[in-house]
C-alpha cells in the first residue's frame, strides 16, 4: 500500500506543478479580461470620479470671495474709447495634490466687430503665487505682485487659446493647496483706428493646470 500512496503523492506534486502555470495563466488572462472590460468598454460609467485623491482641482474667485470652477466675467467695460485703461485682480485656487504647470489663456473672442477691438485691446497679465489663505478680489487690494514680470503682455487677439500655446504664462504649482493672484490690466490702444467704433469683444479667461 505504501507503494500506491507514494506514487500518488509524487503524481499529486507533479500535477500541482503542472497546474500552477495553468492557474497563473488563467489568472493573468482573467485580470486582463476584467481590466480591459472595466476600462475600455464603451459603456463604462465614468461619471463617478475618484478625483479627490492624487489629482488636480482648480477654482477661481471671479474677483470676489466665492471660489468656483466657473465664475462670471470680471470685466464688463462699456463706453470705451482709445486710451481707456483698467485693471482687476482674480485669484485662482489650486486644490490638487500633484505638482503642475498653471497657465492662463482665453476662449474664443466673440462680439460685434470683435476682431478689430481685440486687435487693439492690450492685455497685460501679472501673476504672483500666494498662500492658500490669501484672497485678492477684483479691486486688487492686497495684491503684492507689482507690475514687473508680466506673464503676458500683448493684445487680446494675441493671447493663446490653448494650453500648449500659453507656455509663457506658466506658473509652477508645487502640489499643495495654493493660490495664484492674477492682475489683469487692459488698455484700449490709443492708436486704435476709427474702425473699432461699435465693437465689442467678449472672451472667457481660462486657467488650466497639467
Amino acid at each position, binding site marked *: 500500500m505504501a507503494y500506491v500512496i507514494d506514487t500518488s503523492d509524487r503524481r499529486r*506534486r507533479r500535477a500541482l506543478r503542472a497546474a500552477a502555470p495553468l492557474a497563473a495563466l488563467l489568472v*493573468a488572462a482573467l485580470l486582463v479580461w476584467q481590466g480591459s472590460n472595466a476600462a475600455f468598454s464603451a459603456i463604462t460609467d465614468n461619471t463617478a470620479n475618484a478625483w479627490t485623491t492624487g489629482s488636480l482641482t*482648480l477654482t477661481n474667485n471671479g474677483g470676489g470671495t466665492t471660489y468656483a470652477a466657473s465664475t462670471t466675467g470680471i470685466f464688463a467695460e462699456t463706453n470705451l474709447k482709445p486710451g481707456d485703461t483698467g485693471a482687476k485682480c482674480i485669484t485662482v485656487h489650486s486644490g490638487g495634490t500633484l505638482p503642475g504647470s498653471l497657465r492662463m489663456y482665453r476662449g474664443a473672442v466673440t462680439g460685434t466687430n470683435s476682431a478689430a477691438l481685440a486687435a487693439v485691446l492690450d492685455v497685460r497679465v501679472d501673476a504672483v503665487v500666494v498662500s492658500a489663505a490669501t484672497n485678492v478680489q477684483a479691486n486688487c487690494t492686497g495684491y503684492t505682485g507689482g507690475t514687473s514680470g508680466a506673464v503676458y503682455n500683448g493684445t487680446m487677439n494675441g493671447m493663446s487659446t490653448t494650453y500648449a500655446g500659453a507656455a509663457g504664462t506658466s506658473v509652477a504649482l508645487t502640489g499643495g493647496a495654493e493660490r495664484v493672484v492674477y492682475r489683469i490690466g487692459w488698455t484700449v490702444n490709443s492708436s486704435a483706428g476709427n474702425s473699432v467704433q461699435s465693437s465689442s469683444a467678449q472672451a472667457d479667461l481660462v486657467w488650466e493646470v497639467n
Partner: protein
Amino acid sequence: MTAITEPIRDEVGVKASYSNTRLMAGLLGRSWLWFLAASLAISLAPILFGWGSFVVVSGSMEPAVDAGDVIIASPGYNPLTVTGRVVTFEDPIREGNFLSHRVVSVDEHGYLVTRGDANLTVDSAPVAPEAVVGTGRLLVRFVGLPVVWVRQGNWLPLVVHLALVLGAIVATALDHEPAYRGPTLRSRISQHEPRDPSRLRQRAAPTITFAVALLIGVSSTLGTAGAEVTTASFTAASFNNASRWSVPNWSYRDSVLALGPYLYWKLDETGTATTAADSSGNGRTGTYNPGGTSTYFTRLADGALVTDTPDRAVHLNSAGSCINTTSTTSINAPQVFTVMAWFRAPSSYTDGGKILGFERPQTGVLTPTAGAYDRQLYMDGNGRIWFAVYNNTHVTLNSAAGLNDGAWHMAVGTQSASGMRLYIDGAIVGSNTNTVAETQTGWWRAGCGNLAGWGGNWGGPNNPGTDSGVTQNRTFQADIDEITVLVTALSSQDVTFLYWTR
C-alpha cells in the same frame, strides 16, 4: 519486476524527506513567475500584430486604469463607436509624448474631445484624428509597474519586486523531485532514467524556470523601461466666463456736447437759411452775413464728419461772407477757452483767412484803435494753420504748411493756466506757456475777420502785413464745419478722442 520493487524503498525515502513547505513555496514561485511571464507576453505579443503597447505612467484614468498598467491599443479608431472608449494619442501639450484618455465626444471638426476619468474637466485641446495612435483594447494590470518605479526613481518597490522574482526562482528551483540516491541504486538509475520521460521533465523544469525567470527579471525591469509609455495626465481648468469690453458708436456731435461747449455751430443749414443753429443748447446762434443766399454761401453736402447725419458744411463764397454771433450783447473774452473748427481748402487756395476768432465789432472789421481781434485760428498763404492771441505782443503757434490739400482737417486751439496748445487732426503740433490773451469785449465769429498786423505770423502769399493801423478783412473763402467754442481748455485726450470719433 525489479524495476518496481526497488524504487518502493526509494519512494518511501523521498516522501519522508520531501516537505510540504518546499512544495508550496515551489508552487507559489512557479505561479508567480508564470503569472509575470503571461502578463508580459500578453503585453508584448500584440506588438507583433502591429498593435501598440503602452505603459501608463500616471493616474488620471483612475480607477479604471492605474499607473503601471499596460494599455494595448489597436491602430486607429472607429469614429462612430469611439465615444466612451479610451484612445491613445500624441499629447498636444507635450510633444513626443502619448496620452491615453477617454473620448467624451467627437466635435464638429471630427476632433476627439477627451477627458481623464479622474479629471473634472475635459482636455482643453481636442485631439486631431491624425494624432490618434490607437484605441485601447486590452489592459494588463500592474505589469508595467517596474517601468513606473524606474521612471520615478522609486527604488524600494523595485528592489522588493526583484527580490520576489529571485525568491520565486529559488523556490521553484528547489521544488523538484530529487534524483535517486544511494550507491546501491546508481546502476539502476543510469539504466532506467533515459527511458523515463518524467525524470527528463524534472531536470528540465528548473532550466525552463530559470529561462523564464531571466526573461521576466530582465524584461520587467530594464527591458520595459524602454517601452513606450503613455501618460494619463491630470488636468484641471477653471473659467472666468465672458469678460466683455465694448466700444459704442461714438458720435462726434455727442462727444462735443458731452464736453459742454459754449457754442456749437454745426453749419448743417440748407437753402438760404440765415441762422446758424447752436447745437450746444445755449441758444448762441450765428448769422450768415450778409445773407444766406448762394452769393455768399454754398451749402455743402459733404461735411467733415462722414458718420454724421446730416453731414453738411458751408463754403464761403465772397470776400464779404461771414458767420457772426447773432446776439448783439458783447461778452468779456475768456482767458480759458478752446476754439475748434474743421476746414477744407484746395491746394490752389493761397489766400488764407480767418477760420474762427473773437472780435469787436460784432460784424465787419475795425482797426485795433477802435476794435480788437485775437483768440483766432487762421490759415496763411502756404496752408499753414496759426493759433494766435494778443498779449501785448503777437503770441502764436502754427502747424506745418500744406493743410490746403483738399481734405477736411480739424484745428483746435486751447489756452489755460498751463499755456497754449495747437492740435491738428487730434495731434498736438505746438505749445507754449502763454496764459493771457487780450482783455477785451466782443463776439465770436467764423469765416472772416481782421488780420491786419499779423503779417509777421504768416507764410506764403497774400500777407496781411504788420501794420495794425489798417484793416485787412480776410475771409476764409473755402469750406468750414463744426465751429465750436468752449470756455474750458480741452485736454489732449479729449482732442484726440474727438478727432477719432469723426
